[in-house]
């Protein structure tokens, strides 16, 4: 093999894209030619530096939320699916599938009481809506002493706003939202590029309820009840970290309840 042939094949060699016999030829040439070997080492180092150094970006929550909500639109699929196929799909679908497919928000219908099912759907919708540009925060502050009083006069409750930045959950702010037919407090925390919405409102049920996680459309939803407050945390953060968040949230401050 000539030096020119070796240089031509060198990128494919580094990328392991050569046929076995070509590969052997390059190897043999490199063993005997210092110049080509030097060239090869530079190339291999360059490729390694790029592989190790280039950033693999993570699609932001906001983008995921936008895509999910666009996919949930009835028109999302219209251009490619002719009506006959649609009706065939309907026929083919089992009863449960139809129930589940008729609305993306009926998840969990089988085992949840209706009120809670609605609340789960509502907090998820509210979470996704909050990720749209400009919807996340009515008050943006990392200081609990700004966020907590802000709710005074806006709501008939005073939500918990513990500081959790020391364990990697910085407070971002809060807003008033509308869930299950009433105004509720939404306190917003961050975790890396994830957003956590904590919703709270006074409960008609006084019995405390331990946190339980459910998953819907890639989001984790934790529900619990404490001191007469319905509490919900929603995020696309992994379930483990979200549960850890809820545990620390609960440990840091108990809700003061309805006023």
């Amino acid at each position, binding site marked *: 093999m000539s030096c020119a042939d070796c240089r031509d094949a060198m990128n494919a060699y580094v*990328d392991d894209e050569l046929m076995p016999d070509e590969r052997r030829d390059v190897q043999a040439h490199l063993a005997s030619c210092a110049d080509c070997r030097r060239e090869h080492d530079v190339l291999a180092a360059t490729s390694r530096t*790029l*592989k190790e150094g*280039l950033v693999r970006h993570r699609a932001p929550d906001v983008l*995921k939320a936008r*895509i999910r909500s666009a996919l949930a639109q009835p028109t999302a699929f219209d251009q490619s699916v002719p009506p006959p196929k649609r009706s065939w*799909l309907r026929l083919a679908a089992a009863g449960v*599938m139809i129930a589940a497919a008729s609305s993306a928000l009926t998840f969990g219908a089988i085992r949840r009481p209706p009120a809670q099912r609605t609340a789960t759907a509502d907090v998820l919708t509210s979470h996704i809506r909050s990720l749209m540009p400009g919807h996340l925060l009515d008050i943006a502050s990392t200081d609990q002493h700004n966020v907590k009083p802000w709710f005074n006069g806006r709501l008939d409750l005073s939500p918990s706003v513990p500081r959790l930045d020391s364990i990697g959950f910085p407070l971002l702010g809060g807003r008033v939202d509308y869930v299950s037919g009433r105004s509720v407090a939404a306190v917003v925390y*961050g975790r890396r590029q994830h957003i956590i919405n904590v919703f709270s409102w006074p409960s008609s049920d006084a019995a405390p309820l331990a946190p339980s996680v459910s998953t819907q459309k890639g989001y984790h939803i934790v529900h619990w009840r404490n001191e007469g407050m319905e509490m919900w945390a929603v995020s696309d953060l992994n379930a483990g970290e979200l549960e850890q968040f809820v545990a620390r949230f609960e440990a840091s401050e108990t809700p003061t309840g309805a006023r």
Partner: protein
Amino acid sequence: MAQREVERFERIVLPHLDDAYTLARYLLRDEHDAQDVVQDAVLRALRYFDGYRDGDARAWLLAIVRNCCLTWQRRHRGDRFVVPFADDVAEHITDSRETDTLAIERSERAMLERAIASLPTEFREVIVLREIEELSYKEISDVVGVPMGTVMSRLARARKRLASALGLDVQEAS
């Protein structure tokens, strides 16, 4: 609405969203543009989903994203050039006790990102597809729509430029 098709689409295509976004970030060099284009590309992909047969969904999605990026660039040519910048909420909350090693790593990374950003698009895309997305030459050839020989020569030229931009091509004393 064919909810089941949408669900199949979500299951097969959405796991590759990070890769799609990464490619768009490198091609467009702007996070907001990348978000808009990836959203558009995913909705396009859904509409073409009928034409997708069990192949590599990732390469298939990347091809659509790549085409959407190029179309976007043609439409907005010369609008602006934005230097990539750390802009996420979480990234502001970095450890204030950052060590020197970390600072050096950070500046090396910044140099690398600058070197990539300054490559012409046809070189940048093959580098991203090969070194980050780790596609084969055949897959890159399909995504970019050029023969494999062209993929190879673009990769070679791109790496040469990067080696010299990063100072990796200096002859060592030994």
